[in-house]
């Protein structure tokens, strides 16, 4: 990762990425959209009447459609692959890849976490076991939000454990000083 370097004694506790199941559902949607024009042609158009140049033009348009979908699918894959949270023993790093050229990386020290919330809304989320984790930080209006997290309650627990460990460490350092 180019966005950050781990400090001395800092370890990665957890990496949180969006749900694979939801991405697979998106893949199925892409496949349906890709074959839809071919199916429409098969059922509604007399394909025997399309001959010569007309046939080539229809094929050309369909190939352009497939190429566009192929690129869009990999754009979605890029967002899926690069968007995530990395929780280390010291901080939470929120990597937000919204578009191809828009990427922001925000860091929150673990001791600044004030509130953590998990939301699972809708039947699909319930069935797939995905949810949204929201972290409110102290002294900042910014909320750290991660959608479509698989097993969000487990992730929340691990974040809270890392937070408690960091808080204990800060206390120990203060006592020694």
């Amino acid at each position, binding site marked *: *990762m*180019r*966005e950050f370097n781990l400090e001395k004694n800092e370890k990665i506790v957890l990496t949180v*990425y969006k749900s694979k199941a939801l991405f697979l559902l998106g893949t199925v949607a892409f496949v349906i959209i890709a074959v839809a024009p071919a199916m429409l042609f098969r059922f*509604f*158009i*007399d394909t025997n*009447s*399309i*001959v*010569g*140049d*007309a046939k*080539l*033009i229809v*094929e*050309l348009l369909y*190939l*352009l459609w*497939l*190429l566009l979908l*192929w*690129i869009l699918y*990999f*754009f979605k*894959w*890029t967002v899926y*692959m*690069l968007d995530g949270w990395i929780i280390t023993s010291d901080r939470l790093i929120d*990597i937000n*890849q919204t578009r*191809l*050229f828009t*990427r922001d990386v925000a860091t929150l020290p673990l001791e600044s976490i004030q509130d953590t919330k998990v939301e699972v809304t809708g039947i699909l989320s319930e069935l797939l076991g995905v949810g949204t984790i929201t972290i409110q930080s102290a002294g900042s209006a910014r909320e750290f939000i991660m959608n479509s997290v698989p097993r969000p309650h487990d992730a929340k627990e691990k974040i809270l454990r890392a937070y408690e460990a960091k808080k204990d460490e800060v206390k120990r350092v203060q006592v020694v000083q």
Partner: protein
Amino acid sequence: MHAIILYMDFSVSNPMNTQISFDTETPLDVHLPGPLVSGGLLFFVGIVGVFSLVMIYHWFTYGRNKVLSAGTTVVYLGGVLFFIGMIIQIFTSLAQ
């Protein structure tokens, strides 16, 4: 490429049984000058190329691991080259 002759006649026989047929008796002539087509094709390939390069750069720079990035790049480029190859092949057939 000098001309593309497109024959189309969309006819709906009845609302419950829609049939779109291509009528070869009423040609619609579409004349496209060669430089325009070649230029358009080059522009299109250029746009796809730039977009692809940016995505591949992102995969290798920020990706989770190099193996995943390399695999993604191979699959993606394979698909893009296949589609562009087919598109160019059709253009060549149309030009003949």
